[in-house]
Protein backbone atom coordinates (compact mmCIF):
# COMPACT_ATOMS: atom_id res chain seq x y z
CA UNK A 1 0.00 0.00 0.00
CA UNK A 2 2.80 2.32 0.92
CA UNK A 3 4.48 1.43 -2.38
CA UNK A 4 1.35 2.31 -4.37
CA UNK A 5 1.03 5.60 -2.53
CA UNK A 6 4.67 6.36 -3.21
CA UNK A 7 4.29 5.52 -6.91
CA UNK A 8 1.18 7.70 -7.11
CA UNK A 9 3.00 10.52 -5.38
CA UNK A 10 5.93 10.32 -7.76
CA UNK A 11 3.55 10.20 -10.73
CA UNK A 12 1.79 13.31 -9.40
CA UNK A 13 5.14 15.03 -9.09
CA UNK A 14 5.74 14.68 -12.82
CA UNK A 15 4.90 17.45 -15.25
CA UNK A 16 2.41 16.80 -18.05
CA UNK A 17 5.19 16.29 -20.59
CA UNK A 18 7.16 14.03 -18.25
CA UNK A 19 4.09 11.89 -17.64
CA UNK A 20 3.55 11.53 -21.39
CA UNK A 21 7.09 10.34 -22.04
CA UNK A 22 7.56 8.31 -18.82
CA UNK A 23 8.63 4.67 -19.32
CA UNK A 24 5.62 3.22 -17.49
CA UNK A 25 2.62 4.66 -15.66
CA UNK A 26 1.91 1.61 -13.46
CA UNK A 27 -1.84 1.24 -14.21
CA UNK A 28 -3.78 0.36 -17.35
CA UNK A 29 -6.13 3.31 -16.74
CA UNK A 30 -3.20 5.72 -16.64
CA UNK A 31 -1.81 4.18 -19.83
CA UNK A 32 -5.21 4.60 -21.49
CA UNK A 33 -5.33 8.22 -20.39
CA UNK A 34 -1.86 8.76 -21.79
CA UNK A 35 -2.87 7.26 -25.16
CA UNK A 36 -6.00 9.44 -25.23
CA UNK A 37 -3.91 12.52 -24.57
CA UNK A 38 -1.56 11.47 -27.36
CA UNK A 39 -4.44 11.25 -29.81
CA UNK A 40 -5.92 14.57 -28.68
CA UNK A 41 -2.55 16.26 -29.08
CA UNK A 42 -2.19 14.73 -32.55
CA UNK A 43 -5.61 16.18 -33.42
CA UNK A 44 -4.22 19.70 -32.85
CA UNK A 45 -1.82 19.08 -35.72
CA UNK A 46 -4.80 18.06 -37.82
CA UNK A 47 -6.55 21.31 -36.94
CA UNK A 48 -3.40 23.17 -37.98
CA UNK A 49 -3.40 21.42 -41.37
CA UNK A 50 -7.12 22.11 -41.75
CA UNK A 51 -6.60 25.86 -41.41
CA UNK A 52 -5.50 25.95 -45.05
CA UNK A 53 -9.07 25.48 -46.29
CA UNK A 54 -11.04 25.84 -43.05
CA UNK A 55 -14.63 24.65 -42.63
CA UNK A 56 -15.24 20.91 -42.70
CA UNK A 57 -11.59 20.24 -43.52
CA UNK A 58 -10.65 21.37 -40.01
CA UNK A 59 -12.53 18.36 -38.65
CA UNK A 60 -11.46 16.00 -41.38
CA UNK A 61 -7.80 16.71 -40.64
CA UNK A 62 -8.38 16.73 -36.89
CA UNK A 63 -9.80 13.21 -37.14
CA UNK A 64 -7.48 11.97 -39.87
CA UNK A 65 -4.13 12.71 -38.19
CA UNK A 66 -4.84 10.76 -34.97
CA UNK A 67 -6.54 8.05 -37.05
CA UNK A 68 -3.17 7.16 -38.61
CA UNK A 69 -1.51 6.76 -35.21
CA UNK A 70 -4.51 4.98 -33.69
CA UNK A 71 -4.63 2.48 -36.55
CA UNK A 72 -1.03 1.47 -35.90
CA UNK A 73 -1.65 1.20 -32.16
CA UNK A 74 -4.92 -0.74 -32.47
CA UNK A 75 -4.17 -2.91 -35.48
CA UNK A 76 -0.41 -3.21 -35.59
CA UNK A 77 0.68 -3.51 -31.96
CA UNK A 78 -1.61 -6.45 -31.02
CA UNK A 79 -0.45 -8.26 -34.14
CA UNK A 80 3.18 -7.55 -33.24
CA UNK A 81 2.57 -8.86 -29.73
CA UNK A 82 1.23 -12.13 -31.17
CA UNK A 83 4.38 -12.64 -33.24
CA UNK A 84 6.66 -11.67 -30.34
CA UNK A 85 4.84 -14.17 -28.13
CA UNK A 86 5.22 -16.85 -30.82
CA UNK A 87 9.01 -16.46 -30.74
CA UNK A 88 8.78 -16.52 -26.93
CA UNK A 89 10.06 -12.97 -26.46
CA UNK A 90 10.06 -11.95 -22.77
CA UNK A 91 7.53 -9.13 -23.23
CA UNK A 92 4.41 -8.97 -21.10
CA UNK A 93 1.09 -7.57 -22.41
CA UNK A 94 1.29 -4.69 -19.92
CA UNK A 95 4.90 -4.03 -20.95
CA UNK A 96 3.87 -3.89 -24.61
CA UNK A 97 0.93 -1.64 -23.69
CA UNK A 98 3.22 0.78 -21.84
CA UNK A 99 5.65 0.97 -24.75
CA UNK A 100 2.82 1.46 -27.26
CA UNK A 101 1.04 4.20 -25.31
CA UNK A 102 4.36 5.94 -24.71
CA UNK A 103 5.16 5.89 -28.43
CA UNK A 104 1.65 7.14 -29.23
CA UNK A 105 1.86 9.98 -26.72
CA UNK A 106 5.35 10.97 -27.87
CA UNK A 107 4.11 11.19 -31.47
CA UNK A 108 1.08 13.18 -30.33
CA UNK A 109 3.28 15.49 -28.29
CA UNK A 110 5.59 16.04 -31.28
CA UNK A 111 2.65 16.81 -33.52
CA UNK A 112 1.19 19.29 -31.02
CA UNK A 113 4.55 21.05 -30.75
CA UNK A 114 4.90 21.22 -34.52
CA UNK A 115 1.29 22.35 -35.02
CA UNK A 116 2.01 26.13 -34.90
CA UNK A 117 4.75 25.73 -37.49
CA UNK A 118 2.46 23.60 -39.67
CA UNK A 119 -0.30 26.21 -39.43
CA UNK A 120 2.19 28.90 -40.45
CA UNK A 121 3.29 26.94 -43.50
CA UNK A 122 -0.06 25.72 -44.78
CA UNK A 123 -1.71 29.11 -44.45
CA UNK A 124 1.09 31.19 -45.97
CA UNK A 125 2.37 28.98 -48.78
CA UNK A 126 0.56 29.49 -52.08
CA UNK A 127 1.47 26.24 -53.80
CA UNK A 128 -0.70 23.30 -52.69
CA UNK A 129 2.12 20.84 -53.34
CA UNK A 130 4.65 22.65 -51.16
CA UNK A 131 2.04 23.16 -48.41
CA UNK A 132 1.30 19.42 -48.47
CA UNK A 133 5.02 18.70 -48.36
CA UNK A 134 5.46 20.99 -45.33
CA UNK A 135 2.53 19.33 -43.54
CA UNK A 136 3.78 15.88 -44.49
CA UNK A 137 7.27 16.50 -43.11
CA UNK A 138 5.81 17.17 -39.65
CA UNK A 139 3.72 13.98 -39.82
CA UNK A 140 6.69 11.91 -40.91
CA UNK A 141 8.99 13.41 -38.27
CA UNK A 142 6.53 12.83 -35.42
CA UNK A 143 5.62 9.38 -36.69
CA UNK A 144 9.27 8.40 -37.02
CA UNK A 145 10.14 9.58 -33.50
CA UNK A 146 7.17 7.66 -32.07
CA UNK A 147 8.15 4.55 -34.02
CA UNK A 148 11.74 4.78 -32.79
CA UNK A 149 10.46 5.02 -29.19
CA UNK A 150 8.28 1.95 -29.76
CA UNK A 151 11.05 -0.11 -31.34
CA UNK A 152 13.62 0.97 -28.72
CA UNK A 153 11.23 0.20 -25.87
CA UNK A 154 10.49 -3.29 -27.17
CA UNK A 155 14.03 -4.17 -28.23
CA UNK A 156 15.30 -3.17 -24.75
CA UNK A 157 13.07 -5.89 -23.33
CA UNK A 158 14.64 -8.40 -25.72
CA UNK A 159 18.21 -7.78 -24.51
CA UNK A 160 18.10 -10.48 -21.83
CA UNK A 161 16.56 -13.10 -24.16
CA UNK A 162 18.42 -16.00 -25.80
CA UNK A 163 20.10 -15.15 -29.14
CA UNK A 164 17.56 -17.11 -31.19
CA UNK A 165 14.64 -15.39 -29.45
CA UNK A 166 16.31 -12.02 -29.84
CA UNK A 167 16.86 -12.61 -33.56
CA UNK A 168 13.23 -13.65 -34.04
CA UNK A 169 12.00 -10.68 -32.01
CA UNK A 170 14.15 -8.21 -33.92
CA UNK A 171 12.92 -9.65 -37.23
CA UNK A 172 9.32 -9.18 -36.05
CA UNK A 173 10.14 -5.58 -35.06
CA UNK A 174 11.70 -4.87 -38.47
CA UNK A 175 8.64 -6.20 -40.30
CA UNK A 176 6.39 -4.26 -37.93
CA UNK A 177 8.29 -1.04 -38.65
CA UNK A 178 7.64 -1.40 -42.39
CA UNK A 179 4.00 -2.29 -41.75
CA UNK A 180 3.51 0.66 -39.38
CA UNK A 181 4.97 3.14 -41.87
CA UNK A 182 2.86 1.71 -44.69
CA UNK A 183 -0.37 1.65 -42.68
CA UNK A 184 0.06 5.14 -41.26
CA UNK A 185 0.84 6.63 -44.66
CA UNK A 186 -2.12 4.78 -46.18
CA UNK A 187 -4.54 6.13 -43.57
CA UNK A 188 -3.19 9.68 -43.81
CA UNK A 189 -3.27 9.53 -47.60
CA UNK A 190 -6.86 8.33 -47.56
CA UNK A 191 -8.24 10.64 -44.89
CA UNK A 192 -6.39 13.97 -45.15
CA UNK A 193 -7.76 16.37 -47.78
CA UNK A 194 -4.39 18.16 -47.86
CA UNK A 195 -2.98 15.09 -49.63
CA UNK A 196 -6.04 14.60 -51.79
CA UNK A 197 -7.82 12.18 -49.47
CA UNK A 198 -11.44 12.36 -48.23
CA UNK A 199 -12.36 14.92 -50.89
Amino acid at each position, binding site marked *: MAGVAKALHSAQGL*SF*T*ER*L*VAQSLQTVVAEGARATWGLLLAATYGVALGTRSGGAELWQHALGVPAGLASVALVGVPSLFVFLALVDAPISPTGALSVATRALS*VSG*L*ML*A*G*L*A*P*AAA*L*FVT*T*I*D*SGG*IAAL*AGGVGLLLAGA*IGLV*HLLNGLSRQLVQAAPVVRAGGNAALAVFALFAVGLCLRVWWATLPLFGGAS
Partner: protein
Amino acid sequence: MNRDVTELLTVTNELLRSPASVAERCREDSDLRPLVLGSLLAIVVGGALFGAALGAPRGALQALYAGVKLPLAMLAALVVCAPAFHVLNAGLATPRPFRAIVALTLAATGRAALVLLGCTPGLWLAMDVALGYHQAVLAAAGCYLLAGIAAFGVVARGLTPGLTGMMTSLAFVCVLLPVGGQTAWMLRPFLGRPAQQEVPFLRARESSFADSVMTSAWSAAGIYSRIEHEARELDEGVTGRSRVPVEDRIDAFR
Protein backbone atom coordinates in the same frame (compact mmCIF):
# COMPACT_ATOMS: atom_id res chain seq x y z
CA MET B 1 15.62 51.85 -11.87
CA ASN B 2 19.40 52.12 -11.66
CA ARG B 3 19.56 48.55 -10.35
CA ASP B 4 17.39 47.31 -13.24
CA VAL B 5 19.60 48.98 -15.84
CA THR B 6 22.72 47.55 -14.22
CA GLU B 7 21.12 44.11 -14.19
CA LEU B 8 20.19 44.35 -17.88
CA LEU B 9 23.71 45.43 -18.79
CA THR B 10 25.10 42.52 -16.78
CA VAL B 11 22.83 40.11 -18.65
CA THR B 12 23.86 41.60 -22.00
CA ASN B 13 27.49 41.19 -21.06
CA GLU B 14 26.86 37.62 -19.95
CA LEU B 15 25.00 36.79 -23.18
CA LEU B 16 27.99 37.90 -25.22
CA ARG B 17 30.86 36.66 -23.07
CA SER B 18 29.74 33.46 -21.45
CA PRO B 19 27.14 31.46 -23.36
CA ALA B 20 28.03 28.48 -21.17
CA SER B 21 26.89 30.19 -17.97
CA VAL B 22 23.72 31.46 -19.69
CA ALA B 23 22.99 27.92 -20.84
CA GLU B 24 23.68 26.65 -17.32
CA ARG B 25 21.16 29.11 -15.87
CA CYS B 26 18.52 27.92 -18.34
CA ARG B 27 19.34 24.27 -17.64
CA GLU B 28 19.03 24.76 -13.89
CA ASP B 29 15.90 26.88 -14.34
CA SER B 30 17.29 29.49 -11.94
CA ASP B 31 17.07 33.30 -11.92
CA LEU B 32 15.53 33.41 -15.40
CA ARG B 33 13.59 36.70 -15.15
CA PRO B 34 16.48 39.12 -15.78
CA LEU B 35 17.84 36.82 -18.47
CA VAL B 36 14.50 36.74 -20.30
CA LEU B 37 13.99 40.51 -19.99
CA GLY B 38 17.53 41.25 -21.13
CA SER B 39 17.19 38.87 -24.08
CA LEU B 40 13.87 40.41 -25.14
CA LEU B 41 15.38 43.87 -24.98
CA ALA B 42 18.36 42.71 -27.02
CA ILE B 43 16.03 41.23 -29.67
CA VAL B 44 13.95 44.40 -29.91
CA VAL B 45 16.87 46.84 -29.98
CA GLY B 46 19.29 44.71 -32.00
CA GLY B 47 16.65 43.61 -34.50
CA ALA B 48 15.22 47.11 -34.91
CA LEU B 49 18.59 48.76 -35.56
CA PHE B 50 19.75 46.02 -37.94
CA GLY B 51 16.43 46.22 -39.79
CA ALA B 52 16.64 50.00 -39.98
CA ALA B 53 20.15 49.74 -41.42
CA LEU B 54 18.89 47.27 -44.06
CA GLY B 55 16.09 49.59 -45.12
CA ALA B 56 18.08 52.83 -44.86
CA PRO B 57 19.33 52.98 -48.48
CA ARG B 58 15.69 53.09 -49.67
CA GLY B 59 14.78 55.98 -47.39
CA ALA B 60 13.45 56.72 -43.92
CA LEU B 61 10.09 55.00 -44.42
CA GLN B 62 11.66 51.71 -45.50
CA ALA B 63 14.11 51.98 -42.58
CA LEU B 64 11.21 52.49 -40.18
CA TYR B 65 9.22 49.57 -41.63
CA ALA B 66 12.19 47.22 -41.61
CA GLY B 67 13.12 48.35 -38.10
CA VAL B 68 9.65 47.39 -36.89
CA LYS B 69 9.39 44.16 -38.90
CA LEU B 70 12.73 42.52 -38.17
CA PRO B 71 12.25 42.14 -34.38
CA LEU B 72 8.67 41.08 -35.13
CA ALA B 73 9.92 38.38 -37.49
CA MET B 74 12.40 37.13 -34.89
CA LEU B 75 9.81 37.03 -32.12
CA ALA B 76 7.14 35.46 -34.34
CA ALA B 77 9.54 32.70 -35.34
CA LEU B 78 10.30 32.11 -31.66
CA VAL B 79 6.61 31.91 -30.76
CA VAL B 80 6.07 29.30 -33.47
CA CYS B 81 9.25 27.35 -32.70
CA ALA B 82 9.21 27.28 -28.88
CA PRO B 83 6.53 24.53 -28.59
CA ALA B 84 8.35 22.50 -31.24
CA PHE B 85 11.65 22.89 -29.35
CA HIS B 86 9.97 21.79 -26.12
CA VAL B 87 8.55 18.60 -27.60
CA LEU B 88 11.66 17.80 -29.63
CA ASN B 89 13.73 18.04 -26.45
CA ALA B 90 11.22 15.85 -24.62
CA GLY B 91 11.05 13.30 -27.43
CA LEU B 92 14.72 13.12 -28.38
CA ALA B 93 16.39 13.82 -25.02
CA THR B 94 14.84 14.39 -21.59
CA PRO B 95 11.81 16.58 -20.80
CA ARG B 96 12.58 20.02 -19.37
CA PRO B 97 10.17 22.64 -18.06
CA PHE B 98 8.69 24.70 -20.89
CA ARG B 99 9.92 27.95 -19.36
CA ALA B 100 13.50 26.66 -19.34
CA ILE B 101 13.30 25.90 -23.08
CA VAL B 102 11.69 29.28 -23.77
CA ALA B 103 14.42 31.01 -21.74
CA LEU B 104 17.11 29.09 -23.61
CA THR B 105 15.72 30.00 -27.04
CA LEU B 106 15.17 33.62 -26.00
CA ALA B 107 18.72 33.85 -24.70
CA ALA B 108 20.08 32.32 -27.90
CA THR B 109 18.03 34.74 -30.04
CA GLY B 110 19.08 37.62 -27.81
CA ARG B 111 22.72 36.73 -28.41
CA ALA B 112 22.03 36.52 -32.15
CA ALA B 113 20.37 39.96 -32.04
CA LEU B 114 23.40 41.40 -30.24
CA VAL B 115 25.67 40.01 -32.97
CA LEU B 116 23.38 41.63 -35.57
CA LEU B 117 23.67 44.86 -33.60
CA GLY B 118 27.43 44.56 -33.75
CA CYS B 119 27.28 44.05 -37.52
CA THR B 120 24.92 47.00 -38.08
CA PRO B 121 27.37 49.92 -38.44
CA GLY B 122 29.64 48.02 -40.83
CA LEU B 123 26.73 46.80 -42.94
CA TRP B 124 25.16 50.25 -43.05
CA LEU B 125 28.41 51.87 -44.19
CA ALA B 126 29.07 49.17 -46.77
CA MET B 127 25.53 49.53 -48.17
CA ASP B 128 25.82 53.28 -48.22
CA VAL B 129 29.18 53.37 -49.94
CA ALA B 130 29.65 50.30 -52.07
CA LEU B 131 27.05 47.56 -52.07
CA GLY B 132 24.27 47.17 -54.60
CA TYR B 133 20.98 45.41 -53.90
CA HIS B 134 22.17 41.84 -54.50
CA GLN B 135 25.47 42.34 -52.67
CA ALA B 136 23.55 43.86 -49.76
CA VAL B 137 21.31 40.76 -49.63
CA LEU B 138 24.40 38.56 -49.53
CA ALA B 139 26.04 40.72 -46.85
CA ALA B 140 22.88 40.58 -44.73
CA ALA B 141 22.78 36.79 -45.19
CA GLY B 142 26.39 36.67 -43.95
CA CYS B 143 25.39 38.64 -40.84
CA TYR B 144 22.47 36.26 -40.21
CA LEU B 145 24.84 33.30 -40.54
CA LEU B 146 27.22 34.84 -37.99
CA ALA B 147 24.31 35.54 -35.64
CA GLY B 148 22.98 32.01 -36.13
CA ILE B 149 26.34 30.50 -35.19
CA ALA B 150 26.45 32.65 -32.04
CA ALA B 151 22.91 31.54 -31.10
CA PHE B 152 23.71 27.89 -31.74
CA GLY B 153 26.53 28.19 -29.18
CA VAL B 154 23.98 28.88 -26.44
CA VAL B 155 21.45 26.25 -27.55
CA ALA B 156 24.00 23.44 -27.91
CA ARG B 157 25.38 24.11 -24.42
CA GLY B 158 21.92 24.29 -22.87
CA LEU B 159 20.75 20.86 -23.96
CA THR B 160 21.70 17.38 -22.77
CA PRO B 161 25.42 16.88 -23.42
CA GLY B 162 26.59 14.27 -25.92
CA LEU B 163 25.12 12.83 -29.09
CA THR B 164 21.51 13.18 -27.93
CA GLY B 165 21.99 16.89 -27.28
CA MET B 166 23.67 17.36 -30.66
CA MET B 167 20.80 15.58 -32.41
CA THR B 168 18.27 17.72 -30.55
CA SER B 169 20.19 20.90 -31.48
CA LEU B 170 20.19 19.84 -35.12
CA ALA B 171 16.45 19.13 -34.91
CA PHE B 172 16.00 22.66 -33.51
CA VAL B 173 17.91 24.08 -36.47
CA CYS B 174 15.82 21.99 -38.90
CA VAL B 175 12.66 23.53 -37.45
CA LEU B 176 13.99 27.07 -36.99
CA LEU B 177 15.43 27.52 -40.50
CA PRO B 178 12.22 26.98 -42.49
CA VAL B 179 10.02 28.68 -39.87
CA GLY B 180 12.33 31.70 -39.59
CA GLY B 181 12.65 31.85 -43.37
CA GLN B 182 8.91 31.71 -43.94
CA THR B 183 8.18 34.28 -41.20
CA ALA B 184 10.71 36.71 -42.66
CA TRP B 185 9.35 35.94 -46.15
CA MET B 186 5.85 36.93 -45.03
CA LEU B 187 7.09 40.21 -43.57
CA ARG B 188 9.31 41.26 -46.49
CA PRO B 189 10.48 43.62 -47.97
CA PHE B 190 13.30 44.54 -45.61
CA LEU B 191 15.65 46.05 -48.17
CA GLY B 192 13.17 47.03 -50.85
CA ARG B 193 13.84 46.49 -54.55
CA PRO B 194 15.59 49.45 -56.22
CA ALA B 195 13.12 49.40 -59.12
CA GLN B 196 10.09 49.63 -56.85
CA GLN B 197 8.57 53.12 -56.80
CA GLU B 198 6.57 53.02 -53.58
CA VAL B 199 7.53 51.54 -50.22
CA PRO B 200 4.97 48.96 -49.08
CA PHE B 201 4.83 47.79 -45.46
CA LEU B 202 4.25 44.23 -46.70
CA ARG B 203 4.64 42.76 -50.15
CA ALA B 204 1.64 40.92 -51.65
CA ARG B 205 1.47 37.21 -50.83
CA GLU B 206 3.25 35.21 -53.52
CA SER B 207 4.80 31.77 -53.69
CA SER B 208 6.76 30.75 -50.56
CA PHE B 209 10.20 30.93 -48.99
CA ALA B 210 11.00 27.38 -50.10
CA ASP B 211 9.88 28.14 -53.65
CA SER B 212 12.03 31.25 -53.74
CA VAL B 213 15.07 29.36 -52.45
CA MET B 214 14.53 26.73 -55.15
CA THR B 215 14.22 29.33 -57.90
CA SER B 216 17.36 31.10 -56.68
CA ALA B 217 19.23 27.80 -56.56
CA TRP B 218 18.25 27.03 -60.17
CA SER B 219 19.22 30.54 -61.23
CA ALA B 220 22.58 30.24 -59.48
CA ALA B 221 23.15 27.02 -61.41
CA GLY B 222 22.40 28.88 -64.65
CA ILE B 223 19.06 27.12 -65.19
CA TYR B 224 16.44 29.71 -66.00
CA SER B 225 13.73 27.47 -67.50
CA ARG B 226 11.39 28.08 -64.56
CA ILE B 227 11.83 31.85 -64.71
CA GLU B 228 11.56 31.72 -68.51
CA HIS B 229 8.32 29.74 -68.21
CA GLU B 230 6.87 32.24 -65.75
CA ALA B 231 7.92 35.16 -67.96
CA ARG B 232 6.29 33.50 -70.98
CA GLU B 233 3.06 33.00 -69.04
CA LEU B 234 3.15 36.64 -67.96
CA ASP B 235 3.86 37.76 -71.52
CA GLU B 236 0.96 35.74 -72.89
CA GLY B 237 -1.28 37.11 -70.18
CA VAL B 238 -0.42 40.71 -71.13
CA THR B 239 -0.20 40.53 -74.92
CA GLY B 240 -2.59 37.66 -75.54
CA ARG B 241 -0.12 35.94 -77.91
CA SER B 242 2.76 33.55 -77.55
CA ARG B 243 6.26 34.92 -77.34
CA VAL B 244 8.40 34.05 -80.36
CA PRO B 245 11.72 32.46 -79.34
CA VAL B 246 14.77 34.64 -79.98
CA GLU B 247 16.25 32.16 -82.49
CA ASP B 248 13.07 32.30 -84.61
CA ARG B 249 13.12 36.09 -84.59
CA ILE B 250 16.73 36.09 -85.81
CA ASP B 251 15.81 33.57 -88.51
CA ALA B 252 13.02 35.84 -89.68
CA PHE B 253 15.53 38.61 -90.43
CA ARG B 254 17.84 36.34 -92.38
